[in-house]
């Protein structure tokens, strides 16, 4: 089977403190740290994943841009959205406003500057079971109003950067969507 090497840039989107940095750290180095440090600007990390297609194995190097989540930093966001190939949109299941902000700011702004590229939603902090304030139907309702260029709404996963639940799976799904977007699947 043929092997194809591909490099793609993706970006983490969502309000401050929803766990974007923790999700990237969990995926890339499989670690979690409770200490909260506000991200300033944009920080890249990378991880290689393997996707088995019909005719080829795709070795995908994912450059993951972790950006600051304060909505007032529109210039930083716009500059970083341009040219990326996909995104992970993140909300905090204990804070309903973080889901609302995905629909009102993050997804529309991202689609405007990056195009309707592949997106995956991670509803994060699912380990805080006693404090859940977002229901699956809320997530489905939000995503139904956004379509990627393949006409589908972004898929979603309930994740925990703390326990690792669904983190790998969510990033791999984005990898699959990127490969599909390139016509490799």
């Amino acid at each position, binding site marked *: 089977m043929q092997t194809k090497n591909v490099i793609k840039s993706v970006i983490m989107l969502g309000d*401050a403190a929803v766990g974007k940095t923790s999700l990237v750290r969990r995926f890339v180095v499989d670690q979690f740290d409770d200490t909260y*440090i*506000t*991200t*300033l*600007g*944009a*920080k*890249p*990390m990378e991880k290689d994943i393997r996707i088995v297609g019909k005719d080829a194995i795709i070795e995908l190097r994912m*450059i993951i841009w972790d950006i*600051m989540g*304060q909505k*007032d*930093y*529109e*210039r*930083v966001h*716009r*500059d*970083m959205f341009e040219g990326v190939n996909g995104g992970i949109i993140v909300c905090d299941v204990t804070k309903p406003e973080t889901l609302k902000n995905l629909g009102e700011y993050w997804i529309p702004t991202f689609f405007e500057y990056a195009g309707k590229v592949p997106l995956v939603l991670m509803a994060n902090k699912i380990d805080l079971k006693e404090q859940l304030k977002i229901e699956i139907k809320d997530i489905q309702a939000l995503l139904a109003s956004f379509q990627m260029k393949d006409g589908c709404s972004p898929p979603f996963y309930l994740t925990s950067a703390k326990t690792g639940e669904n983190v790998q799976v969510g990033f791999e799904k984005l990898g699959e969507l990127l490969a599909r977007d390139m016509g490799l699947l």
Partner: protein
Amino acid sequence: MAKKMKRQPETLVELMDIILSRVCRGLKSSRHLLADACTEMEGFGIDPDAPEPEKLEILINYVENLRDEDGNMVFSAVEIQEYRTQLRKLTRRK
């Protein structure tokens, strides 16, 4: 290439947004340099929701000496001067 600010910032947050977006654009193609610069800036302890003027000054002093992969300055002297002027104006207005 260094550019003059098109629109004057009206708040310290806006000034910081302008500076950070220039850092990101200036170093986007040198990922490790951008990562190092952002980590360094995080260490200044600036609250992005309400940046303190003295910490913004530290930020401006830091970016003044930032260089890209080819060794070129990311910011021009004119830009840095403009940021300092804006910081003074916004701090007086507060």
